[in-house]
């Protein structure tokens, strides 16, 4: 199981939980499991999110491996100027 920290304004979709656990080995599995387990997260995931794994921010990288002890943070989709 991977522990995922959810940003504050999405925690209404996780019954107020700051972090949830899902079974996932990659970022794609992570996002799929999150959307299944917490349907309230699905609209945001479909609009776009980034995932920080052990301090590194990933965008559109489905197959980035996640270890069970990784620090995993859901973040808004990154952009820049």
């Amino acid at each position, binding site marked *: 199981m991977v522990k995922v*920290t959810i*940003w*504050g*304004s*999405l925690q*209404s*979709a996780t019954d107020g939980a*700051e972090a949830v656990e899902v079974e996932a080995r990659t970022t794609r599995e992570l996002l799929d499991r999150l959307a299944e387990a917490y349907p*309230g997260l699905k*609209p*945001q995931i479909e*609009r776009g999110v980034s995932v*920080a794994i*052990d*301090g*590194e*921010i*990933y*965008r*559109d*990288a489905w197959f*980035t491996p996640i270890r069970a002890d990784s*620090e995993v*943070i*859901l*973040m*808004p*989709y*990154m*952009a*820049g*100027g």
Partner: protein
Amino acid sequence: MSLDESSRRIFKIVGTRPVRPDGVDKVTGRALYGADMTAPGMLVGHILRSPHAHARIRSIDTAAAMAVDGVKAIVTAADFAAADDPDLQDILDNCMARGKALYDGHAIAAVAATTDKAARLALKLIAVDYDVLPHVTDVDDAMQPDAPVVQSGRAEENVPPGLSENVTTYVAFGHGDLEAGFARADKVIERQFRTAATHQGYIEPHACLATMGPDGKADLWCCTQGQYMVRNTCAALLGMDSSQLRVTASEIGGGFGGKTTVFIEPVALMLSKKSGRPVKIVMSRSEVFRATGPTISSSSDIKIGMTADGRITAGLARLRYQGGAFPCGTVSFGAQSAFAAYDLDAVATEGWSVMTNRPKEAAYRAPGAPMAIYAVESVVDELCQHFGLDPLDVRLKNAARKGTRSSYGPTFNEIGLMATLNAAKEHAHYSAPLGPNQGRGLSCGFWFNFGGDTCVSLNINADGTVGVTEGNPDIGGSRASIGMMAAEELGIPLDKVRTTVTDTNSLGYNDVTDGSRVTFAVGLATIKAARAAIDEMCRRAALIWGIDEDAVVWEDGAARPSGPNAGDFDPLSLADIAARSSETGGPIAGHHEVNADGAGVSFGVHLVDVEVDPELGSVKVLRYSIFQDAGKAVHPSYVEGQMQGGAVQGIGWALNEEYIYGDDGRLQNPGFLDYRVPVASDLPMIEPVILEIPNPGHPYGVRGVGETPIVPPLAAIANAVSRAAGVRLTELPMSPPRVLKAIKATSA
């Protein structure tokens, strides 16, 4: 691709300052910008724009305009099919108003004619029947439940009830017990701040030339930060296959994030489709101000607690950003960035994105971060003043570092904030004496940086030269840095390498030139492409020598036997191998395609001295120093230029630049005479201090540098003004009337 052992080598080309490859073309006028291209039979395109801030469009009658001699096509929103994707639909609706004009300057119709005069006359003859509606341009006003609604039904699912429909996004971040944190503080300060919308201010207005043939194939020449973005967006909006639209990026006269979307390109293509002729559209400066993206304007509430010895116990930021007439997500970056420089046990940020009757916001260097960090850094400084603490010592005491849980969630790995703070403290600037009415301010800055989709192709020519093909417009010196990394890796002189930015049909997809990504990501792909070419050249050498390819190494630009057991052969240089490429198997090339990660976040610290004229309220910048972790600086002059340029834009934001709207909701200052950007005579020489802390996510340790420098100037100057004049300004810009008013209020 992580930092490799080679980063510990002595670089031969990377880190030097060769003459820029685009310099001669630019100073001689040979460089071709967006407006420089012409085509046989070309028509002139012009756009009719709304004179109203908010109006329902009852009807558009183009009959009289079409009757003008020379007019070949007129386009309105009715010519475009609805887009499937809401973001695309917003882009389309911004390019051409559908049903409602949402801001002053919103495009209503476009004309293509054989002459400029005919096109302008036709615009005057287009009859638009408007039903003028109430408007709102202020972010706080737009949030009120009774505010005029810009668009209905656009709020995301987690926006709290009770607010205007203009509120489209709500975000919140943070951790820890705020209440307990504030209770531990010896002093808590709460302040409200406001920042004005500012424009990216690029010197080159938007321009494009579109040609669509009767077979549906089209070519588009335009100034943009991303030709692939333009291709994908325009192809989708015109119902084309992307392969049938070839987009070529011109030289670009500045972008800074403002050219990361489309405004005129789909319109020119549709005019060309309808007329069967090439169509060129060039925006005027007024159109650029009225109808392209400025940054957001903001209103915020900041609350920070500190102990008497300077430890921050809790921080709270509530940010309200207006992004014009469409939903925008910029507030999430502000909310994530606000406290990023600090190691805090208790921190919370909230953000609301709000629609107003203003042009659709576009990215601007580190979008969303400057205004949030300005507010936070102002309050931190005020707390330092309250306790009589050294502001740099307080930053050092509270600085985020490796192992800090960031205010937006992830735990930081290696970051350079402490190094930049220490460099600032040790610099002579920090202890230099100040005169009367002078003050010194500082601020930290932060930006995320990212990598993204990138393709590079590298061809070894038979004469021993190298062509590197990449797909990102060069807005900050990327052709120089890419060429330097290719030459470094191949071990050949830089003048043997030419880097070309290519069109969309010649290379795979590349993300837009933004996010401080190009030198990092394209550089990474270039190094990988060079390594692929080296592998092939070693294989060719092995064939020539009749030995195993594993017994060949590449050193100093030549293939060599890996050791005595591999055989006694003279080295084969890149030129030697290239000359024999046909006989040994054909042309040699390397390429690499990647969605690059590992960009790493970026920190900087700015120090500024100002002098405030107590009678005029004017602020003169006397001295300015920048300390930034740039990773390995490939071409230090360009890195310094990015740092200086960002600082200057931030100085303009702090002191003078603002979108000014009248009561009628119309922009009052759409030109550089009334929209005051800093010019060289306003500024001292800005001293950049590069700290080269290798980025572990890049083989040479490169880190993006282009965005972070615009973040600190707002607060650094506000803090300097506070110390120079004894007034704390909480609204930007700190224009002379505003500063004078604050001084008079204090003295009264």
